[in-house]
C-alpha cells in the first residue's frame, strides 16, 4: 500500500538500509517525535506522521511549525498550538500537557528522554463526551442533526479515520413515495410523518451512530460498524421500521426508504468523496426498485462518468446540430393517402455513431436539456411541414419536462407565426406522463395549446396506467393506440378486443384514432374493420428523411439554403 521509503523516519540516510532499531521505532504503534537540541525535528515515526496528517517524514532538523504546515488535517491554529506544546515539552518546561485539537479531539502529550534527544509521545482521544448539540445544529422539525451539523460530523469522521485509521460507513437514506403523501394529504401530515420516521430510524441505531436530516425527506447515518453484514443488518432494520404502516391524523400511510452506503477509507479518501459515493449508491438503490440497500461499487463512478460524458456530448450535439429528424408517414385507412408524418429525433454522433433515443432522451429529460432539444425539434419539423401540401399534418412529441418550462406555449405560438403553418396541421403528442406529473398545471397548458388551434394527441395509449379518467379530464383530439396491442391483435383476442374498444371509445368521445406499429396486411385489415381512421407503421411507411418525404409527396427537393 505505502512505499517503505516514503515513511522512513527522518535522520536516516537514504543510502543505508535502516537498522532494526530504526525499523522498530518506525513501526511502533505510538506516535513519537524526537527533537534535537535546537528543538528541531530529528525523527518522526510512522504513527506520528499518520496522527499529524503528514504525507512523509520531514527532513531531519526541520522546524516544527514548518513540518506541521504540511498537515492534511490540522488547521493552522491547531498547528501553532501543537508546535508550541511540543517545544515546551522538548525544552523540559513541562513533562506532560493536554491540548484540544479542533472541537472534538484532545491530544495528550508526554515528554521524556535526555537533553539533545528529547522524546515527545502523543496519544489522542475524542473529546468526551461530544458537546451536546446546540439548537442551531438541530433540525427544527425532527430534532435530528441538521445538514450542516451532520456535515461537520462527516469531517470529524474523516479526521478520525486519518488519525486513528478508524473506518466509517455513511448511509444516505431517501424516503420512497413521501412526495405523494405531501401532495395528497398536505404538509402538516407530511411533517408529522417525518417526525415519526426520524423516531423510528433513531430506534434502529446504536447510541454511538450519528443520524441527521439532510433536507426534505433525506437522511444520513454515520456508523463505525463497517462490516458488510452489520451495514446490511442496520439497513434491514431501517427499511423494515420505516416501511411499516403509519397512522397519522386518521390516515393509514405506507412509505418506504432506499439506502445507499459507502465506506471510508475503502471506497473514499475524504468526506466529500464519501458523500459522492453514498449518493451514487443511493441513486442506484432508487433506480433498482427502491426499498433496498445498495453498497457503493467503483463501477458506479465509472457509469456516472460515462453519463457525464454523454451529457457533455448531448450539450455539444445541441450546439453543433448533430440532431436530425426522420419522418414516419401516417396514412388514412380509406384511400390509402398520406395524411401526416410523425417527426422522430435522430442523433448522429461523430464517434458514437447513431445513438438510440432510448439512450439519451431520459438523460436529456433529467438534465433539462430536453427543453432545448424539444424546441429544436418543434421548430425544424414545423418549418419543414410548412413546405408540404395543406392536407398533410406534422406530429411532434412533447416531453413532460417541457411542460415545466414557462416558454412552451409561446414557443409553439411563435413557430406557427414564423412559419405560417395552419395550427390544425400541427399535432402535439403527449404521453400519460404529462398527466401524471402536476396534472392541473399541465392540463391548463394543454388547453392553452389547444386554444392556439393545435391538435393534441395522447401517445402510447393503453400502456402504463392507461386511466380512462385522462380522457375525461382533457378532450384530446386523437388517441394513438399503442403498438403492443396492434402487434398482438391477430394472435391474442384480448388485444384485438382492446383495440376495438379504444376505437369505439374514441369515436364516441369525438377523438380520432390512429393505430401504431402496423406491420402486416392482416393487422391493417383488422384495424380497418374496427373503424380506426389512420395507421402508422412499417407496412405503410418507415421513417424517412426530409428528401424522401418530399419525393413521397411529389414535391421538388428544397433548395439547400432553405433547408439549413
Amino acid at each position: 500500500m505505502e512505499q517503505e521509503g516514503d515513511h522512513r523516519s527522518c535522520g536516516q540516510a537514504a543510502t543505508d538500509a535502516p537498522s532494526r532499531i530504526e525499523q522498530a521505532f518506525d513501526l511502533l504503534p505510538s506516535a513519537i517525535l524526537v527533537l534535537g537540541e535546537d528543538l528541531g525535528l530529528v525523527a518522526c515515526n510512522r504513527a506520528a506522521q499518520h496522527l499529524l496528517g503528514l504525507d512523509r517524514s520531514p527532513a531531519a532538523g526541520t522546524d516544527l511549525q514548518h513540518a506541521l504546515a504540511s498537515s492534511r488535517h490540522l488547521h493552522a491554529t491547531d498547528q501553532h498550538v501543537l508546535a508550541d506544546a511540543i517545544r515546551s515539552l522538548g525544552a523540559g518546561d513541562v513533562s506532560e500537557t493536554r491540548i484540544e485539537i479542533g472541537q472534538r479531539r484532545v491530544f495528550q502529550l508526554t515528554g521524556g528522554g535526555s537533553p539533545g534527544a528529547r522524546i515527545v509521545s502523543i496519544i489522542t482521544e475524542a473529546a468526551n463526551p461530544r458537546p451536546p448539540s446546540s439548537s442551531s445544529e438541530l433540525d427544527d422539525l425532527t430534532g435530528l442533526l441538521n445538514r450542516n451539523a451532520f456535515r461537520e460530523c462527516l469531517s470529524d469522521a474523516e479526521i478520525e479515520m486519518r488519525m486513528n485509521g478508524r473506518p466509517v460507513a455513511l448511509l444516505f437514506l431517501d424516503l420512497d413515495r413521501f412526495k405523494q403523501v405531501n401532495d395528497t394529504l398536505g404538509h402538516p401530515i407530511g411533517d408529522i410523518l417525518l417526525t415519526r420516521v426520524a423516531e423510528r430510524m433513531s430506534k434502529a441505531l446504536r447510541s454511538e451512530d450519528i443520524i441527521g436530516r439532510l433536507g426534505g425527506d433525506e437522511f444520513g447515518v454515520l456508523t463505525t460498524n463497517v462490516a458488510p453484514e452489520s451495514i446490511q443488518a442496520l439497513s434491514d432494520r431501517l427499511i423494515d421500521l420505516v416501511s411499516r404502516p403509519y397512522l397519522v391524523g386518521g390516515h393509514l400511510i405506507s412509505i418506504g426508504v432506499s439506502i445507499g452506503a459507502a465506506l471510508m477509507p475503502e471506497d473514499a479518501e475524504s468526506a466529500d468523496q464519501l458523500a459522492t459515493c453514498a449518493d451514487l449508491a443511493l441513486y442506484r438503490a432508487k433506480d433498482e426498485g427502491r426499498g433496498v440497500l445498495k453498497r457503493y461499487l467503483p463501477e458506479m463512478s465509472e457509469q456516472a462518468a460515462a453519463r457525464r460524458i454523454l451529457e457533455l456530448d448531448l450539450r455539444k450535439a445541441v450546439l453543433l446540430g448533430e440532431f436530425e429528424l426522420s419522418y414516419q408517414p401516417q396514412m388514412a385507412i380509406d384511400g390509402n393517402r398520406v395524411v401526416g408524418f410523425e417527426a422522430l429525433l435522430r442523433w448522429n454522433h461523430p464517434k458514437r455513431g447513431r445513438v438510440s433515443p432510448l439512450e439519451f432522451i431520459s438523460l436529456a429529460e433529467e438534465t433539462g436539456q430536453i427543453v432545448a432539444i424539444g424546441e429544436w425539434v418543434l421548430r425544424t419539423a414545423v418549418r419543414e411541414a410548412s413546405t408540404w401540401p395543406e392536407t398533410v399534418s406534422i406530429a411532434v412529441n412533447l416531453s413532460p419536462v417541457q411542460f415545466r418550462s414557462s416558454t412552451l406555449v409561446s414557443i409553439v405560438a411563435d413557430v406557427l407565426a414564423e412559419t405560417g403553418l395552419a395550427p390544425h396541421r400541427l399535432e402535439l403528442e403527449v404521453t400519460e406522463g404529462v398527466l401524471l406529473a402536476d396534472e392541473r398545471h399541465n392540463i391548463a397548458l394543454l388547453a392553452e395549446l389547444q386554444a392556439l388551434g393545435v391538435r393534441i394527441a395522447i401517445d402510447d395509449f393503453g400502456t402504463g396506467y392507461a386511466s380512462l379518467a385522462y380522457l375525461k379530464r382533457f378532450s384530446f383530439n386523437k388517441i394513438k393506440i399503442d403498438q403492443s396491442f396492434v402487434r398482438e391483435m391477430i394472435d391474442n383476442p384480448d388485444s384485438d378486443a382492446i383495440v376495438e374498444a379504444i376505437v369505439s371509445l374514441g369515436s364516441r368521445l369525438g377523438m380520432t384514432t390512429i393505430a401504431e406499429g402496423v406491420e402486416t396486411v392482416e393487422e391493417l385489415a383488422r384495424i380497418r374493420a374496427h373503424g380506426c381512421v389512420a395507421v402508422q407503421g412499417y407496412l405503410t411507411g418507415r421513417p424517412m428523411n426530409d428528401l424522401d418525404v418530399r419525393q413521397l409527396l411529389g414535391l421538388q427537393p428544397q433548395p439547400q439554403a432553405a433547408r439549413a
Partner: protein
Amino acid sequence: MTEQLYRLAYYSRNALPDDADMGVELQRILDASRKNNARANVTGALLFNRGCFGQILEGTCDDVERVFETVQNDPRHTSVVALQFEAVPERGFGPWAMAHVGAAAFDGAGYDAMSKAIDVNPASCAGTDLFDALRGVMLAHGPTRSKTWSGRRAE
C-alpha cells in the same frame, strides 16, 4: 363527550429468534400491551402463532395512533400490513385491554394468502373481508383462557 371510536386491524410476521421461548415471549408481549393499552384507553385483541401476529386496536383516533406507533417500533415483529382502519360505533372487544386468541385457525398459510391479497391492492387496505375473517376467528374461538390470562377492563 363520546369521541368517535376507530378500529385498526393489522398482521405482522413474528421476528422472535428461533430459540426464543414463545410462551414466555407471548406472555411478555401480552403483559406489556395490556398495561399500555389500559393506560391509553385502547382495547383490542391479539392473535399469535409461531408465524405471525394479528392485532386489533380500538379507541379514539389519537389513542389508537399512539399505541400503534409504539407497537410499530417493536423489533419482535416485522412485515407489518395494516388491513383496516375505520370508524366504528362501539368497541368490539370492550372488556379486554388485549384479549389473546389462541389461533390455530390463523396459520401461516392463511397469513400468506391474506398478505398476498393485500399486495394486489395495497392502496385500498379495504380489507373488509380480511377484517371479518380476523374477527370471525376471534369471535368463534374467544379469548384463550389460561391461568395467566388477565382480561382487564380498559375503562
